[in-house]
């Protein structure tokens, strides 16, 4: 089938054309038998719709939709072709000639069974060229004005249709209702034959409207005069116009174009009878619905297809004109909304959000409400969690501090010893010096030596106090780089006297290079002190040689390992995990928070703490602290 146009073009001989036609029939029937071919091809039901204008014109789109929806329901096997003559963009004799030649060639082998013409230009074109194009096909016309039909009368018997009746009365009544103060109607028509036909109709219609309003006809004037007159109008008037094709000077317009100029100039609201004028500045009018017209045409075409005699067709009931209103213009001219009747089709009215999306709005509101509820819930939850986190952090901080105070309490004896030792020495030295001076038995060197000793002891005492204060002060958590070696040696210093008091030994083995991790130096020191005190507790009752605790720091894969090893009895395998739980204790004194706090502190440094039993004896506690993020291997130093 797709090859057909080429075949047709090449075979110019009538015989060949005949052969081709036979071929088409043969192909069509075989295709029908095979059931693969489009239904239209087989049945011959072919409807051609000629539109006056562009395919995108709203009136055309509506009419096309009406025709297709109706015909497909009535004749499912009918084929519909559509041609858009594209007036008024292309006009002139050449165009018409070319167009008709094109259509003739195009539809030579598949002539339409019925032709529908939509609009006055298509009607005029087909009436002029019908005998060259589709002489056999009956014609159904729509949207051609009554004036035009009248002008073309008498029509052939196989040309039927309902002329487009301009609802003058309906439109004027609509205008007068919308503008209560208006008593004067200005009717504008043009100078062409069509325009004159309109004018005649309107004058008749106006005469029938009696005393409703006074009518003024601006018929066949120059555009300038029309515009001047319209500009002088006030709200006491309304303007009615179908637009015009030509003014007195012979200047041509398309009706919509003419209307557009008028509405811009007019001091009174402009009404018109065509839907196509909506958007050109008219407020509204009683307008014909092109979709309905399309449906009516399809009905008539369908009847003809199944064999009805076109002449026998009673003209389809006239499509009721639809009152329409351009909401934008209505607002501009202050049409009170309560005067707009319900059956008026209001165009370009932004429906209120509620009207347009009632269900969606309800659903969305529901969703929003739920979401808001959820969000506020989450916010409350988040705040609560944050507060809890802060409280937890504070609690942890307080707990860690309390734990350090407990440690300090435990170390009171040894710390007092450490401070009193140098204080005692200072006092004795001072008194000795005094005595020596009194007796005059001393040399300057001796005195200087004494003074140096006093100074050194003073430093010693204050150093002990400094370390103790560092351990006890309730300062903000620090997050700074520090050397783990220093933390364990500080811990050892704090523990020195306590180790001695318990007659134990503490061996500290720092790594050869600095082990810099990030965190709170004091907290890690606290963890080490805690582990050493635990180790000494575990070995307190053992012979002195087993009361040895070894603290070792080493660089390992990914961080630092601090181990605290004792020579006690070790941890029963079943308790290796449990030992870090709160309130787990094997000691007679103590509430079992030490290791639990140690674990919390280590984990707050993103580290790990665990215990294993030594190969021969004792327990080894390990604290792993990761290198600072991003520091890489350089943090390990060299």
């Amino acid at each position, binding site marked *: 089938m797709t090859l057909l146009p080429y075949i047709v073009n090449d075979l110019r001989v009538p015989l060949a054309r005949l052969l081709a036609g036979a071929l088409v029939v043969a192909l069509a029937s075989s295709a029908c038998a095979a059931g693969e071919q489009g239904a239209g091809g087989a049945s011959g039901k072919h409807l051609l719709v000629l539109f006056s204008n562009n395919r995108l014109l709203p009136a055309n789109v509506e009419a096309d939709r009406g025709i297709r929806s109706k015909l497909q329901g009535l004749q499912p096997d009918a084929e519909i072709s559509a041609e858009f003559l594209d007036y008024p963009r292309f006009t002139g004799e050449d165009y018409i000639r070319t167009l008709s030649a094109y259509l003739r060639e195009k539809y030579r082998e598949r002539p339409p069974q019925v032709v529908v013409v939509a609009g006055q230009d298509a009607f005029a074109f087909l009436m002029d060229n019908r005998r060259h194009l589709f002489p056999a096909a009956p014609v159904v016309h729509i949207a051609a004005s009554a004036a035009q039909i009248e002008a073309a009368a008498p029509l052939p018997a196989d040309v039927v249709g309902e002329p487009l009746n301009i609802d003058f009365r309906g439109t004027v009544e609509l205008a007068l209702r919308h503008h209560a103060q208006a008593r004067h109607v200005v009717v504008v028509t043009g100078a062409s034959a069509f325009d004159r036909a309109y004018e005649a109709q309107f004058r008749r219609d106006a005469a029938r409207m009696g005393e409703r309003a006074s009518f003024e006809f601006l018929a066949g004037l120059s555009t300038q005069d029309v515009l001047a007159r319209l500009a002088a109008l006030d709200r006491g008037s309304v303007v009615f116009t179908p637009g015009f094709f030509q003014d007195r000077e012979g200047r041509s317009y398309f009706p919509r174009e003419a209307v557009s100029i008028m509405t811009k100039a007019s001091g009174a609201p402009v009404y018109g009878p065509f839907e196509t004028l909506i958007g050109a500045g008219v407020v509204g009018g009683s307008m014909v619905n092109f979709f309905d017209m399309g449906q009516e045409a399809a009905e008539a075409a369908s009847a003809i297809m199944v064999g009805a005699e076109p002449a026998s067709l009673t003209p389809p009931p006239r499509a009721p004109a639809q009152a329409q209103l351009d909401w934008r213009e209505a607002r501009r001219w202050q049409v009170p909304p309560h005067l707009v009747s319900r059956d008026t089709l209001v165009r370009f009215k932004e429906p209120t959000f509620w009207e347009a999306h009632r269900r969606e709005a309800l659903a969305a509101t529901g969703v929003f409400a739920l979401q808001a509820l959820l969000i506020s819930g989450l916010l409350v939850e988040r705040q609560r969690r944050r507060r809890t986190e802060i409280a937890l952090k504070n609690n942890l901080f307080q707990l860690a501090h309390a734990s350090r105070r407990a440690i300090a309490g435990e170390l*009171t*004896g*040894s710390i*007092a*010893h*450490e*401070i*009193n*030792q*140098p*204080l*005692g*020495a*200072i*006092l*004795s*030295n001072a*008194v*000795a*010096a005094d*005595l*020596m001076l009194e*007796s005059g*038995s*001393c040399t300057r060197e001796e005195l200087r030596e*004494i003074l140096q*000793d006093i100074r*050194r*002891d003073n430093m*010693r005492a204050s150093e002990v106090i400094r370390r103790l204060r560092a351990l006890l002060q309730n300062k903000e958590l620090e997050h700074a780089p520090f050397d783990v070696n220093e933390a364990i040696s500080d811990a050892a210093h704090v523990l020195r*006297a306590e180790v*001695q*008091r318990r*007659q134990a030994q503490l061996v500290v083995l720092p790594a050869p290079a600095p082990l810099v991790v990030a965190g709170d130096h004091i907290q890690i020191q606290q963890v080490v002190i805690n582990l050493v005190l635990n180790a000494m507790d575990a070995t307190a009752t053992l012979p002195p040689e087993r009361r040895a605790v070894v603290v070792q720091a080493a660089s390992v894969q990914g961080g630092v390992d601090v181990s605290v090893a004792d020579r006690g009895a070790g941890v029963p395998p079943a308790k290796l995990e449990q030992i870090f739980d709160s309130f787990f204790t094997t000691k007679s004194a103590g509430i079992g928070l030490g290791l639990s706090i140690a674990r919390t502190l280590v984990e707050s440094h993103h580290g790990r703490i665990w215990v294993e039993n030594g190969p021969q004896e004792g327990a080894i506690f390990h604290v792993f602290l990761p290198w600072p993020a991003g520091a890489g291997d350089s943090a390990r130093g060299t």
Partner: protein
Amino acid sequence: MSVAPVIHVVDDDHSLRTSLLRLLGASGFETREYVSTGDFLLNPAPDRHGCVLLDVCMPGPSGLELQSALARQQAPLPIIFLTGHADVSSSVSAMKAGAVDFLTKPVEPEVLMDAISRALERDRLARAARAETQQLHARFSALSDREREVFNQIVAGKLNKQIAHELGIAERTLKAKRAHVMLKLKAGSVADLGKFAEQLRRDQFTQTMREPSQMHARPQASAP
């Protein structure tokens, strides 16, 4: 007491020890220093008038342990404890075991000197007592067997007639022996003899206490 008393300072803390030595030296004492209890035990003090300033808390055996070790010696020196931190239990046990005082550092020099003078007084008395007992022992050992028998009978409160009868000697001979005993023991009266006997018995008892291994074989003081 022609020789100056010796003060033994036992403290592991170098600086404190040095300062004490300076103070004591400036106060006219002779001093000796020890860095640990073991150091003190390994370097026995000459038997001289003096006392010990002992730190409680030291590496190795503590001051309290040294105290109990010294208590077993024949002539223990009085001990003054010095401690950096006085806890009740160690102060109680120290005082019970006979310490002169238990002082907390830093010690006021006056307090220390007072304690030292009390310790030296106690040492002086103890030395005097020990010297007396020694003399008594010497005199007692100079008695013949028969004279010791007479001494035992006298201090048991028996009359001359009874003693003479029991020993199977004449009353007159007994009287002569009795005069010898009094003379050898430098006793002025029978009451003095009773006092000596009591002294010897007590000494015997403390000797036994110091050597617990001999507890079971405790000799009777009345029958030396």
